[in-house]
Structures are given as C-alpha cells and as structure tokens.
C-alpha cells in the first residue's frame, strides 16, 4: 500500500493580519458595515432608554451613558473610514472602552431598580460594536476584547442580581448578559479568522503562480539582456578587440582608442546602473502615452535612488497608482511629477565610501584608468607598511565601535498630476488604489487644488548600520 505524499503545510497568516490589511480593496467594500452598525446601536440605545424611563433613577447618568455609546459609535464610523485606514488597535480599544463605560453608566443609572438584565441596551450595543470590528481587526484581538467585555458585563449582572425582578439563580443573569456580548464577538472573530485565512491562502498561491510565470520568462529575458548589451558593444568594442587580435600588434592609436572606449563603456554602464524600477515604469508609461498620440513629459526626482529601497508590495502599489493616474480621463500628459526624498540616509545600494579616519578636508588624489603602478622605493614600502597596519587597526576599531543596529528611515514620495476630471469622479476612480497605498505605506495624504492632484505618502525602511 502506498502512502500519499503529504501536502506541504501552507504558511499561516501573520497574527496581526486583518481583512483590511491583506485585501485593502475588500476592506473598502466592508466599510458600510460601520455606519449601519453604529446607527443600529444608537437607535436601540435611545429606544431602550426611553422605554425604561420608569427604571431610571439618575436620568443624568442615563443621558451620559447614551451619549458615551454615541461617541463609541461615532469613533467606529470615523475609524473605519477608508481615507483613515488602517484601523489600528488603539481605535478598537477606544471603541470597546467607551462601550464598557456606557454600560457601567447605564447600570449605575438604574441601580437597584433594573427589572431585567436582558433589556439593557449596553451589552447588545457592545456586542454589535465588536461585530463591526470583524473586517478591520485580527481575530485574536477581537476575541480578547470580547472576552474582557463579557467578563465586565457578567460581573455587573451578578452585582445587580439581588435587585432584579425575575426569580432565577443569579448566575443565569450573568450568562444572559455575557451571551449578548460573546455571541457577536465570537462571530466577529470567526469571520475575521476565516476571511484572513482565505485571503492568505489565495495570496500564497498567487505569489507562487507569479514566481512560476516569472521563471518561465527567465530564458527569453536573459537573451534580451545579452542581446541588448552586445548591441551596445557590438558596434565598437568587439570589432576593435577582433582587429587588435587579428593584427597581433598594438599601436599608440589603439591605446588611445582603448582608453576612450573604456571611458565610454563605463559611462554607459554607470548610467544604466543608476536606473531604478521607477525609471523603467515611467519610461513604459511614456511610451504608452506617446502611442496614444500624446506628447508626455514625466519627471522623476529621485537623486538618492530611494526607490530601490521599496519592497515588492510597495512597488506594486505605487506602480499601480501611477499607471491609474496616467490612464485617468482628462490626464495632462505633461504634468506627472514623481519625487522621492527622505530624512534618513540613502539606500546602501548607492556607493557610500566611509571616511573612517583622517582629515575630512584632504584633497582628493586624481585616479584614472591610466595610472601606472608607482615604483615603490624601500622607504616608501616601509611607510606604506606602517600606514597599512594603522589602516587595519583603525578599520577594526571602527567596525567594533559601530555595532549593527536597527534604525528607521522615512522616505517621502510625492506624486503630482493635473487632471480635468471632476473631483468626485477622480476620488471614485482612485479610491481602490489609495486603499492599497494605505495598506503598504504610512501617512498617505491626498490634496487637490483645482486640477492639480498631489499624493504624498511615507515609506518606512529599517536599515542596518554598521558593517554595510
């Protein structure tokens, strides 16, 4: 009997994952849940308070209680707004804390005169608020918030049990009050867990498919790269090599030409090394716009090549936004400006030479390709040995004094375009792309002055300083 090969375990979704974080566009669609739930919570609180006026002893406390629950509902609506995404843990805690405060105030307002626990508006309101967290927060967090809220609600019910109008064991009141919180909270957590797992599973499969598709194009891409390079070299360098080799002789003109070609090739290679994914993306959009019969002028200002520090999600989100902007109706093809600047050091990809020791103002020594090896005298050799020993000691000291440490640098990306599309249509067209930007960047700001639309967002990157 053969045993089936076990299927590899899928990677688990991170504990902090929520539907909004993993699938920002889906989170966008879930947003109407918040105002609907808030409206139900507030309406029920007001109706329940009015219908139980005969039980209320301190009307001020009852009013404050309803007011606090209204604030909780308002915070929920505010926190779930797509333009303020992501929905943070603090926001969830504030909402639940306000709900609990409303519950305690309501219990105090009917102290010793509460007829029935099941009529209290706060536990149900709290449960509904927890239900509304489902698309925005991770399931474990909802579970913890639900569990702690249920505990508080249960204890409050037990404390009130001697004064209630129904003659049943006190623990029954606690169970009823806790169920009103726990049932929606567990439902909310179950939804969050299931949807996050489904999205994560899809993302894992999709990324695998993307990798496979990319690998398939490795051969053609490598050929393309080689062809491109050889075309650049083919015109001058290769015939020159072949010519020299054929003649088996090197003339002064050949040496001069070799020097000049070395300079040219190196300059071309340096220019190409400076290209980033953003340059490529904009170049492609430029071609697309030209094909549409437009005369594009797209400007990139990224002198430190900070775009190279973006991860693949950030590149995809920013790239999709730029493509979406270029295909907007009424887009002015001469208006696109993408600028990246930042507070921290440039990404290490750029050549950074550490001036570890000595005078900063020392004059540079010219070094060219034609530098010949100097004749080293005995005295120079001795001096150089000393300098070498000193350099090594300094280098080791430097590396010890600068241990690895994590630091957070922030790059700010600014995208500006001019479009004649009316603001509401523009907002509608860009909303899904903005929701994705908010999931992978921080502090996404959108401002618009007449036809000029400005997007600004921050990319945080952790750099390891020290041996780098």
């Amino acid at each position, binding site marked *: 009997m053969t045993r089936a090969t076990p299927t590899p375990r899928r990677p688990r979704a991170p504990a902090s994952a929520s539907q909004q974080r*993993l699938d920002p566009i*889906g989170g966008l*669609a879930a947003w109407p*849940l918040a105002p609907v739930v808030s409206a139900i919570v507030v309406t029920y609180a007001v109706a329940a308070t009015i219908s139980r006026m005969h039980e209320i002893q301190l009307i001020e406390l009852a009013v404050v209680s309803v007011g606090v629950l209204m604030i909780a509902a308002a915070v929920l609506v505010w926190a779930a707004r797509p333009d303020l995404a992501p929905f943070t843990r603090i926001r969830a805690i504030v909402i639940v804390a306000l709900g609990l405060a409303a519950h305690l105030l309501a219990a105090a307002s009917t102290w010793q005169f509460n007829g029935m626990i099941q009529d209290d508006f706060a536990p149900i309101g709290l449960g509904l608020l927890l239900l509304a967290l489902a698309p925005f927060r991770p399931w474990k967090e909802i579970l913890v918030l639900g569990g702690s809220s249920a505990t508080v609600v249960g204890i409050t019910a037990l404390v009130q049990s001697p004064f209630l109008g*129904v*003659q049943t064991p006190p623990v029954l009141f606690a169970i*009823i009050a806790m169920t009103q919180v726990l*049932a929606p909270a567990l*439902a909310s957590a*179950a*939804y969050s867990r299931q949807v996050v797992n*489904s999205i994560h599973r899809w993302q894992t499969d999709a990324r695998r498919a*993307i*990798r496979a598709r990319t*690998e398939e*194009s*490795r*051969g053609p*891409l490598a*050929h393309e*790269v*080689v062809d491109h*390079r050889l075309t650049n*070299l083919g015109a001058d*360098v*290769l015939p020159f090599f072949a010519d020299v080799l054929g003649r088996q002789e090197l*003339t002064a003109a050949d040496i*001069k030409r070799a*020097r000049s070609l*070395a300079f040219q090739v*190196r300059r071309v*290679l340096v220019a190409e090394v400076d290209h980033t*994914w953003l340059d490529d*993306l904009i170049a492609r959009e430029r071609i697309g716009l030209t094909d549409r019969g437009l005369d594009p002028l797209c400007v990139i200002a990224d002198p430190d090549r900070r775009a190279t520090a973006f991860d*693949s*999600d950030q590149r*995809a989100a920013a790239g999709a936004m730029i493509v979406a902007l270029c295909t907007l109706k009424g887009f002015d093809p001469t208006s696109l400006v993408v600028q990246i600047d930042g507070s921290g050091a440039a990404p290490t*990809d750029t050549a950074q*030479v550490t*001036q570890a*020791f000595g*005078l900063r103002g*020392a004059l*540079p*020594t010219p*070094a060219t390709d034609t*530098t010949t*090896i100097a004749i*080293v005298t005995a005295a120079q050799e001795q001096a*150089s*040995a000393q*300098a*070498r020993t000193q*350099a090594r000691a300094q*280098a080791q000291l430097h*590396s010890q004094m600068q241990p690895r440490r994590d630091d957070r640098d922030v790059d700010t990306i600014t995208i500006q375009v001019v479009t004649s599309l009316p603001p509401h249509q523009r907002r509608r067209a860009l909303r*899904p792309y903005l929701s*994705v930007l908010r999931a*992978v960047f921080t502090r996404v700001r959108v401002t618009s002055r007449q036809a000029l639309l400005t997007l600004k967002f921050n990319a945080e990157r952790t750099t390891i300083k020290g*041996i780098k």
Partner: protein
Amino acid sequence: MSLGLPGHLVQLTLARALARAAHWFALTCLMAAVVSVAILSLHSPELWVTVGVIVAMGALLVLFTRHRRIAFAVAYLVVGTLGVYVFTTTVLGVPDAFPASNMFLVAMPKMALVMVGGAGITAIGGVLWSTAAFILAEASAFLAILTTTVPYRPDLFTLSTYLVLVGAMVLAGIDRRASNAAQPAIHRAVQDGANRQLRDALDTRAIALLNDTTVAQLVALSLAEPGALSPGLTASLKYTLTTLHDTNWLTDIDARTTTALQPTDTQKSPSDAWLSSAVYTAIERSRDRGLVVEVTGDRDALARLDAESDRDVGLAVQHCLVNVILHAGVASAEVAVESDLSTISLLITDAGRGFTESESASDRLGIRQSVRRRIEQLGGSVLIWSRPGAGTNVRLTVPAAPIQPQDRPNRVKRPAA
C-alpha cells in the same frame, strides 16, 4: 500585502466567512442555553430533557459546519424546530419563573436556528435558508407558548438577529462591484514588478560581467606598451571575445551555478577547498600581474562557501585587487580571511594613495557593481575605509554555512609570492 481577492473568489470567500461567523454565533447561543437550563434543572428536574435537545442541535450544527452538506442543514432545521418547541414549552412551564414569553433565554435556540442561513453559498440562498428557519422557529415557539400559562410577547431578539444576518448577507452579496477594475491592475503591477526584478538581477549580473571582461580588457590595452601583443594580452583578448560571442553567457553562468550548488564542496579537504576557491584564483591572477599579495587568516574557512558565493566573492576580491594595481600606486596588498559561526569576512588592505567619495563618483561602477552589488546579492555587506594618502581597506562579509565541530580554525600565514 496588495494582492487582494479577485472578483470571482469574493462571493465564495465572504459566504464561507459569514457561515463560519453564523455557526459560532449559533454555538455560543446553544452553549449558553445548555448551561442555563442545566442550572435551572437543579431545581426543576423536568428541564433535563431540554439539555438533550440542545445538545442534539449543537451536534448537528458541528456536523454541518464540518461537512457542509444540505442533508445536515435540513436535519438541523427539523431537529431545531422540534428543539425550540420542547425548549420553549419546558422552560416557560417552570412555575413563577418568567413573567412573559419574550425571554432572552427562550430566544437562544431560535437565534441559533436562524443562523443556519450561513449555509447559503449565495446571498439569496442564505436569505432563503434564514427566512425558512426564522418562520419555523417563530411558529414552533408560538405553538409552544400557547401550551403554557405565560403571556405571549413578540420576540425582538430573534427578529433583530434575523434582520442583522440577512443584512450582512445582502451586503456581502452586493459588495465590490465598483472596485472590480482595480484588483486586476494591482495583480498586473505585482507581476510586472516580479518581471522587472528578474530583469534587474540579470542586468546587474550582465553589467558586472561586462565590467569584469570588456572594461578590464580595454583598461589592460590602454596600459600596455605599443608593439607586439604579449601572450597574456592575446590570451585574455581571445577569452573575452569567446565569452562575449557566445550569446548564452548569462544563462551559462546560471547553469554552472545550479550544477555547482550540489554540496560536493563539503567533501573537500580544507586545503583543497582553498586551492580550488575562486578567491585563490583571483589572488593568483593578480600575482601574475605583478602584485604582491599576502594572505593571512583562516583560509580554510572558504570551504564553507557554496559555489555561487565562492564565485562571486572571488570576482569581488579580484576587482578589489585590480583596483589596487590600477589606482593604489603600490605593489603589495594583503588579503585577510576571518570567519565566525555564520559569516566569512575578507579584508583587502593596501597602503596606497586611497580615494575619496567625491573623486570616485564618476568612477564608481566597479565598486558598486562588481563589488557591492555582487556581495549584497549574496546577502552580505561591504564596508570601505579610505582616505587620500592613507590606503584603502575593503571588508567583504558574506554569510557562510554554519561552522562544523571538526572545522577547527587553521590560521596559516602565507608568505608573499
């Protein structure tokens, strides 16, 4: 993460998540009902029968959640309707306990029954299941209440639960219609990004190889004396031309790397590993060009590098040594190999004229491409210390296979060749 669910998966995913939520809501209600009647039955033993009914409902719900078969849903609906009847009759039949029929306790099995609506794969299906369950539960409870002395009051708990569930299902069914165009665009952007990354990696390697072959060859020609070509120059010109004319040079490197990645190097003895390492070859090449290279430190540690790392570290060291020959103005350099548990460092030191960042700006391709990018692609790091007149130190650090217990550091000082 930016790869959201594509349109065709949205409805199914949300329906499943809603079903899961509904089932947990129902299970919580059933558990609370069981615990409550168990407590009540301590004083009224006739209530024990309700415990059995609710447990049966719970068991069917669990079966349905696990297997999602229509038969279990129907069974849950039938048993649930009977259960609601028995539960309502028995609980409200407890004398002098409940003032009216609209007790939350009585509503618990009804709310659990309504949650069968999560079974629907589509929004309409879910709404139909929930509606059926709601009607059956309310009818069953109404008939049960008629058999008791407790006055009938409408049960708003079950009604509002039903409305909230139906609302959620409808919302899930109609969502995202406006955002359907953006999701494929994001997906395309991710695919484009992956392609671009691969192209960049190939380009990086191509530029490094061109820098090592073509530019180095041109520089060698520019430094040579006029006259007949030396045998060394002839050989290197032939090698360069052969390499470049073979249009598969980029993929050949891949193929060589892939085959070389087999862990054959772990079989080698340490000294063999040093002699066959690319670093040794690079040093030998520089010695052939007249540079005096002193090697110190734990040379045998290079055996811990895999084939790809060995090749790239060798090329980076070669580039550093060529820089010494071309720019430093000295005839000697030192290569020190250091290792720890997880990394190997090579310190290439010369006491030459050094350089500054500004002067190297126009000439930085070699350091950037042939040294820094190569090492960084291996997951390593490069640190350069230099100052005009005080020499240059380049430290290359790359990750290596963890040290084995038999790998004793074998510090050998090799005299200048």
